[in-house]
Each structure stands twice: as structure tokens, then as C-alpha cells.
């Protein structure tokens, strides 16, 4: 019986050590709650907002693979070894002899790529062993991604705007896209004030903003004014034209411009996937007016 007890206590102690390590030593990162599809009020949307929606979809979802770091998929919004940005090169793809789809123009090509990614596989990006005939890209209009037709159109509009070619898609009219009928776990409540937003996303840990005194990242108390200076900076490589655009870009793509005197890579790049649409707009407005 003594051995029995010793073994029981020893086993409990070993288990306890692992449980302690996982609970106390490893940081408790709380993953985002399951997503809830937003209802889009397309009827009241301007083209600029529609393009913004496409940009958000692209940054939230597509950049997981279409980014300059991993080399997993062709670049979409940057020019590079794959040619000009997709908005411009799509027109050329449909003329490629290896193209297997039915699109007649760039817009149709991009839409087809979302539904049937293997219609054209960019050389070097095919599934291994298929000689670039099968694309590893998932269908984005169904399954886990499940983009609506409106969102696909918004992404096309964003690609075309980004490439400087005429936007050929139209904002879908008619009834707003229905909210998802899929019930899900209740999402975290959207922040209603800048203070709530700052507390929710921990901006004050690094930034001086909305009553918080974060010491290690740029002061945001006057970012509405400072943003215009940054846009004119010779090192600025982003695409923003105004303070709101700069702030949007800094949140969604922090590496577009790193404020002088601050280290790169500190700002998390995944806020675009976490911040809810309505609180995002509220915060951008608040910061744009912080002068």
C-alpha cells in the first residue's frame, strides 16, 4: 500500500507540474471568438466604402497566403516577379495559352479564380507533383471561408482600384445581404467608445491614447495632424491620401510605414482580423479628429 500511495502522489506531482507550467508560465492568449457574419448595408454604401470593404476582406482572409513573406501564393496588390498587381494582370491571364477557364475579361477572371482556383495556376504555385495544373488555393465562396458574391465583388473593386485600372464591378443593389442565419456563440460586444476600444484591444499598453500612457510606441494624441506629416515623409511607401486612410492603413498593415525612432514589428499585424467593423470606423474617426 505504501508503494501504491507513493506512486499516486508522484504521478499527481508530475501532472501538477505540467498543469502549473501551462497555466502560469505560458501566456494565456485568448483566441478570437467564432466569427459572426456581418450584415452589409450595400444600398447605402459608396464606391469608396465598397473598395474599403474589399480591402478589409483581402487583409483579413487572403493575406494569410497572398503576402510577401511566406511565398505561398502570388502577390495580389504588389507588383513583383508575378507581374503587375492582379487588377492589371488579370486581363492578360485570360489570354494565356495555359488558361483553362471561361472568363472573358479581368473581372470575370478574378471572380472565376475565387470559385475555380485551378482555372489558371500561376507557374511555381501549383500543388506539388501536378506540374502547376492544380491550385492549392481553397474555393473562397464556400466552405470555411464562404465569401458572399457581394464580398467577392468588393475584393475585385479593391484589386482594380489598387492597380489603377477602371473599376468595372458595380455595388450590388437590392436588399441588403442577409445576416447569417447560422447562430453562433455570442461575439464579444463591440466597443462603443474610444476608451472601451483602447481597453478592449490593449492599445494603451504601447501607445499614449484615450487616457492611456503607453510609452513605447508613437503618441496618438495628435495623430490626426501627425498623419498628414507622415504621408508626406520621403520614406512613406503606403497609399493613404488623408489622415483616416493613414490610420486605417497603420492598423491593418502596420509595416506600411514605421514611425521614425520606433522599432519595426512591434504593432501586431492581425488587428484587421479581430476588430469589428463598426468599432473600427468609430476608432478611425476618433483618431482622425485627434489633432
Amino acid at each position, binding site marked *: 500500500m505504501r*508503494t*501504491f500511495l*507513493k*506512486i*499516486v502522489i*508522484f*504521478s*499527481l506531482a*508530475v*501532472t*501538477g507540474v*505540467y*498543469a502549473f*507550467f*501551462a*497555466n502560469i508560465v*505560458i*501566456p*494565456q*492568449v*485568448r*483566441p478570437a*471568438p*467564432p*466569427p459572426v457574419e456581418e450584415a452589409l448595408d450595400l444600398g447605402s454604401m459608396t464606391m469608396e466604402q465598397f473598395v474599403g470593404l474589399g480591402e478589409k476582406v483581402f487583409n483579413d482572409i487572403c493575406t*494569410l*497566403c497572398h503576402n510577401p513573406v*511566406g*511565398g*505561398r501564393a502570388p502577390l495580389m496588390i504588389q507588383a513583383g516577379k508575378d507581374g503587375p498587381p492582379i487588377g492589371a494582370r488579370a486581363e492578360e491571364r485570360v489570354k494565356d495559352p495555359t488558361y483553362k477557364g*471561361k472568363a472573358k475579361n479581368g473581372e470575370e477572371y478574378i471572380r472565376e479564380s475565387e*470559385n*475555380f*482556383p*485551378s482555372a489558371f495556376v500561376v507557374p511555381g504555385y501549383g*500543388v506539388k507533383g501536378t506540374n502547376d495544373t492544380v491550385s*492549392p488555393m*481553397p*474555393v473562397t*465562396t*464556400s*466552405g*470555411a*471561408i464562404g465569401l458572399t458574391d457581394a464580398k467577392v465583388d468588393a475584393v475585385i473593386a479593391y484589386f482594380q482600384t489598387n492597380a489603377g485600372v477602371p473599376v468595372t464591378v458595380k455595388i450590388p443593389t437590392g436588399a441588403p445581404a442577409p445576416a447569417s*442565419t*447560422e*447562430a*453562433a*456563440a*455570442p461575439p464579444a460586444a463591440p466597443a462603443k467608445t474610444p476608451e472601451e476600444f483602447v481597453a478592449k484591444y490593449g492599445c494603451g*499598453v*504601447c501607445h499614449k491614447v484615450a487616457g492611456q500612457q*503607453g*510609452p*513605447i510606441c508613437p503618441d496618438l494624441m495628435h495623430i490626426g495632424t501627425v498623419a498628414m506629416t507622415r504621408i508626406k515623409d520621403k520614406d512613406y511607401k503606403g497609399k493613404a491620401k488623408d489622415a483616416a486612410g493613414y490610420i486605417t492603413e497603420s492598423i491593418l498593415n502596420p509595416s506600411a510605414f514605421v514611425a521614425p525612432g520606433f*522599432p*519595426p*514589428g*512591434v504593432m501586431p499585424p492581425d488587428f484587421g482580423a479581430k476588430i469589428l467593423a463598426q468599432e473600427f470606423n468609430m476608432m478611425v474617426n476618433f483618431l482622425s479628429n485627434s489633432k
Partner: protein
Amino acid sequence: MKLFSVVISKGLFKRGFIAALFFFAFLFALPLLKPAKFFLIGTNTAHASEQAVTTEKLPDAEAKPEAKKEEYQPAPKLKASDYPQNKYINGRVMAWLTAQLHLWFAAFVLAVPIFVFIIEAIGMATKDERYDKMAYEFIKVSLTAYSVTAVLGGLLLFTLVIFYPDFIKYMSGVFSSTMLAYAFLFFAESLCLYIYYYGWHAMDTGFGKWMHLTVGWMLNVVGTTMMLLTSAWASFMMAPHGVSATGAFEGNVWLAIHNHLWNPLNLHRFVANIAFGGGVVGAYAAYKFLSVQTKEEKAHYDWMGYTANFIAIAGLLPLPFAGYWLVAEIYATSQQMGITLMGGSFAWWFIMQAILIGGLFLSANYYLWCGMERTKGAERYIKYTKYIAFVIVMCFLVWFTPHTLVLKPGELKALGGPYHKYLGPLGIMPAKNTAVNIMLIFTFLSFTLYKRCSKIATVSWAPLGNAIQAAIFTAAVINVVICGVYFGYFTNTVYKVASSVLQVGSTLTVLISVTIIDIFMFKGAKEAAPLEWGKMPDRSQYALFVLAVTFTWLMGLMGFIRSGIRQHWHVNGVFRDASPDAFTPTIGYGARVISTGVIIFMAIIIFIFWLAQFGAKKSFKAANH
């Protein structure tokens, strides 16, 4: 290794090899079979969503027969209210715990018959009754565990029916034929196991022994087939196949079984089960070693513990490679899922995995080093153990160095960012791959030294053999480091991933070539000093317990990660989990559930060990007097 040498020297190798060949052929030929009705059409590896689009969105695609569309409904779109709640029991935690406990016991009862069969065959070939006796004792422990497995399986089914009725209805709609087959196979396995166990002494000579061995073979075939079926259900939930994008079953169950992740999961489970089974019977032997008093009994359970540790290490060494294949296929199936796994929400869970695997390697090595005390011949090698320990600890430290640190503002400011200037690069995969391969190579070195403690090679080419082995070890380590450092940090991602294959190749080369050289070099070796079984310090037995508890914790952790990367999907991409508990928990929450499961599992298994004492005392006395 002694087991392996016996197989070679006693001529069992040829028969064993053919038998093993048939066994593995059976395992891996299933995907190639295409009987007309059960497997309606041939195999392909298109994914559900891709397949659905191919058929639904391309105008020229072949239309599905209308009858099929009407016969099977899409996956239901559920609301939170569709999940029954119980005031006192959380359905998710209940399902999590029962599924995990069932898997632990199932892994144990599937693994034990595999090595019991091999040990019995060795005993039969060598006519050494010790093997037979040990095999019988192993199967006796697994017999009690078998009943617990069945009870937990029933509890899991009830839990799913009560808390996830729509999910179980959907899964049984797709897999009805395999679920019925599973139930019938359960009967077959019970029958084989009872004949195998209760017929052990009745069929212990001549043709009877062959018959007994054949029953053991059938037990393993049935058990492994059951594992393949359950793996099909689990892998389908991750990589649905044979269903439309809305989850409607297309009528061909073979496509659903042979999904993209089925075979990688089969292999990983098969190897992991053996390592886990070895770990648990090692704990049994340790428990008995600490409980018994006589020298003979101590010697017996020491030998049993050594054999169990050998089995656990033999399973542990190839496990990272099987895991690597599984993860590569997860990436190939869904990059999104792969990134969630390794770089997203679950990245910190892998730091915990590193801790646990470090614990496994250190305890297994420690047990081997303690084992050197069994013979005076080990004095030649004991001086090297401190260097091996140093290398393994360093590799362990590299393995659990995180890439991105979660810091307080002051710490972030002091560090100048979330990445440490020097330690940050150790957080990425090339460093981890390098560390784990070196850890494997040095563990194998520990084992190689242990094997030769009591022997002196007598062949004339022994010095040359030793030099070649040393050269192989050295070249492999250099190659692993160069592949990790040069291709990992100074070239692009494509080479970074590809270089890991070279690293694995180096490790496998060491394992295979050094083993082959050893077999021939120590043929007819003379004894350096007698090997005294039972001459082990008690602390070494606790290392076997660390091994068992750590294996159990690790299986719980990795089981959750594999399942958890589906996030808020019952069946990835086609059937959403809308329950209030569909969130991905923090690692602390997960650790508390896993630890609870480990404690329940260990409590039951130690109770089973304790129960086994009653009969064992009597039979040991009868056998020795």
C-alpha cells in the same frame, strides 16, 4: 535491441519478416481496394469544397444524379438552442474528457497485443519461457483495461447523443455502414482477446502454440481495422471528402473514409499507440519492481521495465517523422488550418508539447543511464553520459524557445520589440527541427552505448566498425546543423522546408546503419561483465512513471490540438458548431481539462496494476517453487 538480435539469430527473421510484410500490406492496401458496392468509385484526393465547386459551379461539369441530391440532406445549420444543456454538466467538457479517456485506453489495448504478439513469437522461437511469461503478464493488464475501454466508448456515445444529437446524426448518416462494421468488429476483437488470454496455457505447446499465435495475429488485425475506422471519422471531420460544399453526403462512403488525412493519421496513431503502450506497461513493471521483495521478482520486473522502455523508445523515435507527415498533409489540405496550427492560436500549445517531449527524452535517457549500473562493463561508457545529457538539455532549451514573446510594456521597451535579438531566431522551425533531430540522434547514442555495456565485440573488424559508426554519428550531426542553419536562415522558404527532409534523412540513416553494423559487429561477442537484472536504483523506476504520465499528458494535448484546429466547425468548412462552447480555449483551460483526464486515467490504471498484484503473487510463487 536484444529482441531484434534474437529474431535475427534464431531464424525467426524470415517468418517474422513475411508476417510483418503481410501486416503492413494489409494496413496500406485498403486504400487501393475497390470492391464494387462498398467502394462505389475509385479514389481521388480532391477536397470537399473543390469537388463541390467542380460539380456545381462549372457549367460543363458532370451533373450529379438528381436521386443522390434528394437522398442526402446538407449538413444542418444549427442554432445555440439546438444543443441540449444540462444544469450540472458542461457537454463539451464531458465529451472532451470521455473521448480522451476512451482514446487513452483504446490506444493502450490496441498497442499491447501488437508487442505481446511479437514477444510471444520470440519466446516461441527461442524456447525461452521468460518471454512467454512476460507477454502473458502484459496481456493480463490489457484485459482489464479492455473492459474499461468498452465502458468509456459507451459513455462517449451517450454523451454525444445527449449533448450533440445533430452532430452524431449527421456523422452516422455518412458513416452508418462503418459504424455497424465497427460494432461487429468489437465482437470479433472481444472473441479473439478472450481466446488469446484464456487459451494461453491451454495452447502452449506444439500446434496449439501456433494456433494461439494465429489468434494473436487475428486480434491485431481486427484491432487495427477498428483503429482505421475511427481514424476515418476523426480525419473526415478535419478534411471532409465525399460530401458537397454544403455537407450533403454524395453516397460513396469510401470517399469519406479515404479523405486526405486518413493515412497520415493512421500511421501517426499506430506508431504513437505503440510508444504509449510501451510507456504504460513500463509503469506497470516499475510499480511491480517497487512492490516486490525477492531478488528473482526484482530481476523479472526490471527486465520487463527495460523491455517496455525499449518499446516506448522504439515508438518514440519514428514518431516525429509520422507527425511531420501528418502536419504537412494538414497544410496541403488547408493552409488556413495549417497556419492556425503552427502559427496561430495553437502556437503556444506547441511550446507545451516541447516541454513534454523534452520530459520524455530526458526520462527515457535517464532510465538508460541508470540501467548502466546493472553491469560493471558499463564503466567504460558512463563518463560519456554527462555530455549526452548536456546536448539533450541544450536541444530541449532550443525546442521550447518561443518566437514571439508576450511581454509587459517595460519588458517590451527593454527588449526593443517582441523578439529577442539572439534567442528570437531559435523560435522558428529550422532551429526546432535541428534540435529535435540532434536530440533523437543522441538518444539513440545513449541506447547504443547501453547495449554494448556488457559486451565486447570479437570480430576482427570491430575497430573499423566503431570508427565507421562514429563517423556516421558525426556526419549526421554536422549535416543536421548545416541544413538547419544554412537552409533555415540564409535561403528562402522553399529550401527551408525542403531541408528538413534532409535532416530527417540524416537521422534515419544513423538509426538504420548503426543498428545494422551493431548486429554484425556484436555477433558472437564475449561478455564484458555479467548483466545483473534487478540491480537498479528505485529512482530509475520513477523515470518510467514520468515516461507514462508524460506520454498520457502529451496524447491529451496533441489530441486536443488535432481536434481543436477545426475551431468552430464540427466538420471543417461544411458543418458549423454553433454551440455556446464552440470557442477555442486558452491553454490554461485546456491544461486543466487534460490534467483532470490524466489524473482519472492514471488513477484507473494504477488501480488496475494494484488489482493485478493479487493473481501475480500466487502465480509467481507457483512458477518459482
